[in-house]
């Protein structure tokens, strides 16, 4: 089977559905701040980072520190997480970051502040069995989020610079 359905439709699936619905509606309700090309690229970039991180740390090629949802195999809900939930959450972060920049606050403080909800989100996901750790610890996720948030911000600035180029 190319993508597996969930073994049991339980807490982790509901967790994913609820969070996708919630974040999707929040992002739709917010006033449009970026052009479509910008939003598309932000979403793609975050999906890429999610794919890359999970490939490196969870696919068993070469490391296997955690599993997603019910099976170590790739199922529909893994894809929903990587291609829908993470990008939307990342988009919301970038939305906040743009407002944050306009206010002139520190970028470092933004990274530090965003690491907290990300870690809390991961902890709740762990409790809902969205992840199954196989040697990974939540403490390792904190520096990972700092790196990821910094990469989001670098890409954000890069996109802003590219948008100014005449097409």
């Amino acid at each position, binding site marked *: 089977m190319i993508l597996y359905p969930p073994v049991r439709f339980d807490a982790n699936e509901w967790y994913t559905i609820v969070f996708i619905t919630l974040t999707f509606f929040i992002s739709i309700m917010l006033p449009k701040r970026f052009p*479509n090309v910008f939003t598309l690229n932000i979403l793609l970039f975050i999906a*890429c980072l999610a*794919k890359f991180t999970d*490939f490196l740390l969870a696919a068993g090629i*070469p*490391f296997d520190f955690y599993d997603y949802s019910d099976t*170590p195999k790739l199922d529909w809900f893994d894809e929903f997480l990587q291609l829908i939930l993470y990008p939307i959450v990342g988009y919301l972060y970038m939305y906040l970051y743009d407002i944050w920049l306009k206010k002139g606050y520190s970028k470092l403080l933004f990274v530090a502040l965003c690491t907290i909800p990300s870690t809390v989100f991961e902890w709740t996901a762990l409790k809902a069995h969205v992840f199954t750790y196989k040697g990974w610890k939540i403490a390792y996720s904190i520096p990972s989020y700092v790196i990821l948030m910094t990469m989001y911000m670098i890409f954000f600035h890069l996109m802003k610079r*590219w*948008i100014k*180029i005449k097409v």
Partner: protein
Amino acid sequence: MLLFFYQKPQTEYYYYLARDAKPFHGGNMGFLRSREVPIVVSIKRQRSGENNIALRKSGYIWYPSVKINKLTSLRYIKSLQGFTAYISGGKRAKLEHNMISLLFILINLIMLLSYTKYPKRLHPIRAATCYMVSFIYIHNYLVIPSINLGDWEITKRIDYGLIITLNNVIAVPVAALLFIEIYTVARDFQEKLMTICTWVLFMLLFEYLHDWFGLIHHKSWKISWSILVWFFLGIFLIVITKIMKRMMMKLGDVK
């Protein structure tokens, strides 16, 4: 305590392996094909009492990464009849393995240099989109046949795994970018068709280079499926760049 650290001195052994050897615990013997003569090159003893076995097949070294219990595996090997295998220090195997890693690093560098030197016509945003789309596609292409379908087997060696990751981050997406750059300057249908055919052939060669050097193994995967996969990625990228061009045109009034 002394017994725990005791290791037998390395000696030359002679064993037998069957041509159609069935998979051991982790299924790594499944890498051997029907017409290949597997030769045990080295057995590295672990402290836990397990062994890492290096096998030589088709002129290159393959390391099954699953640690096989010495007693059971050797008994199993001895029980099989057919082809002579030998065990040696494995220094040559290590050298060959380093050469394979170096070769792939070199390919990545060449790809990167070719892209930086190539005159670029695509807007950076369009190029970034193509890069990211091919990046996601290639990750799924590697994971789905190996983990979900079981048509591939991917090495469990950490260094080879990192080489595969490097190829996924640099070589393949950069090759996709080069393909799109060349495709956009192609003038007529024939040139475009030639570009697509070259892209498919190049990626097919690159994919089977992984197989040849033992980074991945196509078990029940067919070459025609690979052709379809690369052809589809090529077409998908062409469509994406066209959509992106339209979106970029609308971007004119954005500051």
